């Protein structure tokens, strides 16, 4: 039998104005199991709370009822108060005699009777309350970052600095991502490599960071705090431990005409290669598709020249399985394919994307930073930039969203051209110029005002490659004139989209993804770096178009959230979850089918049925996943499944008490 204390709050006159508190108190005294009843003007006040605490200790109460406002208001307050005593905080129930009584009823007698009934129901429920203990699930103090771009690397560094081990999985042979391909960054025009590569090196040498390049996620199991993830390290054909990164192998490689991915196909690479000079790790990869040794069995020049004997043609994919507490998706973006944009003559070597332009102006790029036309290697006399290529476009080939970064990088490109070659005529066709951000609009205005970049409000309708030059037809809407002119080089501000592989990764992590394949946030404003799946976090442009400052800032936020999770030794879970009596479970699987969280599985378990042991297939609840909705409880016909905190007995007791 419970020893129940009832505490009735006046809430000033909020309750006492309509409800006869004395009567509620008097009635409560006669309820079974009630040992102590008290009233107070403001139960939630410091004094009120200590009164509750004192009564619990003095009267050895086993359960308490607070008749006051809505539990949505102060249940947590009073649970905390109870927790400061020896009472389990879940031995508390609230009767809502304010929002659902005194505030909605005028007749004092009716309101008093109802307050009594609600208090009675809460007392009846407390009789069946049991102490609940928030579940604990272990936290593996290790994070996995998927994607080794600036988002992944800076997030990993932040987490590693906090003292947690971080693994980075990168699908290409080197970390660095899209930022490594860039020349300068807006709006400061500092060199991309100069700010990125130190971070990459930091990551490489950080004692808490392990980098798995040329690797992919193979499988994911588990849940927040306790993921088990298998990583496939693709065969590099080069022993990472032995290789010194001397570069002799790719110098000697006879296959030299493979369009290099890092240079966006503008420059060539060998079959054994590192994507770029500052690659981390500085260990080459053999592209088995093009390598002569793999294609014909002959060659092996690299093996011959490799002093440390690092070349290993027999190397196989390696699977690494590791436990993680948190996973960060930082897979980033890539420009869309322009195959279906025939009007821009992208097939012409002198029509290039902005990212290609970045490689072309980069001193380490295919042209050593020299701005030339690919077709005739001559310096262009005029360059035309076209914005919104594939962005803000409802056609299937395009993206409906604004790619956000193009206005700024186009201004940057235009400015850089003008800075280096003031004689080149630069035209930019735009729909709108969108440059909100610190020093962003000033940056764009500088391009116009200081560098004389010609911004034309209008679009290019078509581009024709005449061989020696490009002919364009466009419109200047402000002038209301059609422009038909020649230009030497066209740069397309191509829309960006999430990398294709993110769908698969999101699927494995059961993180949700929107129609554009961008990751969905748990809440767009309040949980902007968490996915709806607990333990899965987001960083960088996988969430939506982002520039570098935003990406790095966001990655820091993500890191903070991850650190917050990993800093815990145990995760505290909601204790009001499904609870199975294995003895009654007949293994019919109905509950499993209605669980929205996949928290129920079935296992063959040994049951002691009154001394008779039997192996039965019964439901097993994953306490970390269960959110306590109760769908399974009602689906279970035998009552084997129950819901802690809202058990069948508790609810029927409330019903009985109300109907008495």
């Amino acid at each position, binding site marked *: 039998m419970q020893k129940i204390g009832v505490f009735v709050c006046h809430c000033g006159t909020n309750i006492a104005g309509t409800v006869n508190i004395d009567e509620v108190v008097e009635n409560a005294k006669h309820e079974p199991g009630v040992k102590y009843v008290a009233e107070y003007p403001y139960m939630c006040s410091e004094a009120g709370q200590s009164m509750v605490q004192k009564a619990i200790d003095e009267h050895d109460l086993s359960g308490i009822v607070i008749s006051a406002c809505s539990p949505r208001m102060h249940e947590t307050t009073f649970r905390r108060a109870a927790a400061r005593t020896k009472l389990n905080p879940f031995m508390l129930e609230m009767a809502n005699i304010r929002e659902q009584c005194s505030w909605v009823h005028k007749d004092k007698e009716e309101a008093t009777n109802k307050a009594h009934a609600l208090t009675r129901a809460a007392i009846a429920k407390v009789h069946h309350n049991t102490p609940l203990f928030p579940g604990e699930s272990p936290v593996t103090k290790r994070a996995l970052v998927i994607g080794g771009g600036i988002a992944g690397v800076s997030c990993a560094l932040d987490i590693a600095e906090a003292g947690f081990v971080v693994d980075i999985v990168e699908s290409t042979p080197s970390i660095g991502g899209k930022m490594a391909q860039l020349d300068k960054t807006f709006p400061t025009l500092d060199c991309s490599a100069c700010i990125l590569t130190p971070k990459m090196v930091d990551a490489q040498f950080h004692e808490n960071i392990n980098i798995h390049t040329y690797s992919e996620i193979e499988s994911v199991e588990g849940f927040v705090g306790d993921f088990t993830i298998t990583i496939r390290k693709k065969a590099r054909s080069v022993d990472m431990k032995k290789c010194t990164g001397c570069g002799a192998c790719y110098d000697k490689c006879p296959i030299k005409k493979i369009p290099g991915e890092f240079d966006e196909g503008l420059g060539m690479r060998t079959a054994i290669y590192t994507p770029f000079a500052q690659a981390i790790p500085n260990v080459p990869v053999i592209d088995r598709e093009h390598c002569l040794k793999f294609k014909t069995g002959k060659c092996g020049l690299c093996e011959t020249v490799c002093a440390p004997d690092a070349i290993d043609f027999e190397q196989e994919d390696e699977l690494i399985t590791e436990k993680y507490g948190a996973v960060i998706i930082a897979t980033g973006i890539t420009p869309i394919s322009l195959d279906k944009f025939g009007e821009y003559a992208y097939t012409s070597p002198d029509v290039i994307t902005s990212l290609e332009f970045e490689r072309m102006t980069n001193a380490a790029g295919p042209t050593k930073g020299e701005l030339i036309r690919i077709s005739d290697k001559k310096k262009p006399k005029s360059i035309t930039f076209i914005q919104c290529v594939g962005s803000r476009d409802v056609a299937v080939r395009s993206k409906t969203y604004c790619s956000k970064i193009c206005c700024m990088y186009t201004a940057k490109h235009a400015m850089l051209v003008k800075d280096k070659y003031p004689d080149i005529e630069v035209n930019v066709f735009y729909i709108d110029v969108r440059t909100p951000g610190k020093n962003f609009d000033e940056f764009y205005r500088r391009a116009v005002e200081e560098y004389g970049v010609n911004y034309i409000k209008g679009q290019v309708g078509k581009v024709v490659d005449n061989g020696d030059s490009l002919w364009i037809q466009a419109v200047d809407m402000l002038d209301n004139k059609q422009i038909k002119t020649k230009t030497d080089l066209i740069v397309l501000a191509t829309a960006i989209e999430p990398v294709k592989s993110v769908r698969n990764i999101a699927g494995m992590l059961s993180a949700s993804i929107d129609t554009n394949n961008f990751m969905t946030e748990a809440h767009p404003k309040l949980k902007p770096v968490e996915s709806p799946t607990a333990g899965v976090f987001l960083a960088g442009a996988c969430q939506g178009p982002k520039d570098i400052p935003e990406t790095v800032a966001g990655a820091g936020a993500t890191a903070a959230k991850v650190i917050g999770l990993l800093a815990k030794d145990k995760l505290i879970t909601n204790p009001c979850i499904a609870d199975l009596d294995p003895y009654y479970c007949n293994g019919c699987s109905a509950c499993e089918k209605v669980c929205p969280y996949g928290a129920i599985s079935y296992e063959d378990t040994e049951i002691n049925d009154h001394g008779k042991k039997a192996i039965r297939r019964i439901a097993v609840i994953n306490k970390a996943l269960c959110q306590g909705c109760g769908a399974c409880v*009602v689906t279970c016909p035998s009552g084997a499944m129950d819901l802690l905190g809202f058990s069948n007995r508790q609810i029927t007791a409330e019903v*009985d008490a109300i109907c008495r």
Partner: protein
Amino acid sequence: MPLNPNSSFTPLIVAFCCNWCSYAGADLAGTSRLNYPAQIKIIKVPCSCRIDPMFVLRAFQKGADGVILCGCHPGDCHYSTGNYYARRRITLFFSMLEYLGIEKERTHLEWVSAAEGNKFASTMRKFTEQIHALGKNERLEDIR
């Protein structure tokens, strides 16, 4: 009160409200001081899918004259799918009660969001009138 002043009958009505929408809606009705009859007594459940038909029968057995169930609007469930299951269960169960000759007006399901304090109060007013018109529940009450 629009209730029949000549009748001494005071109905007893049990309302089951899901924690996330309807209970919050009821709270909002309170904060907005929207009157509804005191015969409505609310029991909080985490989700409309927690409402077992047994609870409804239990309430009738113990003398309730009406039972009203409230949950989040379809599509708004805090647990994503709870109210879809509830909708099927309750639809079939109410249909069965009607088939057994229990007055269909004694039971009702209403979707009330956390923002619909007004709807909560008006629904409760309407339902109470309905039960009042029906009179005492005799068909399902336990006579022991």
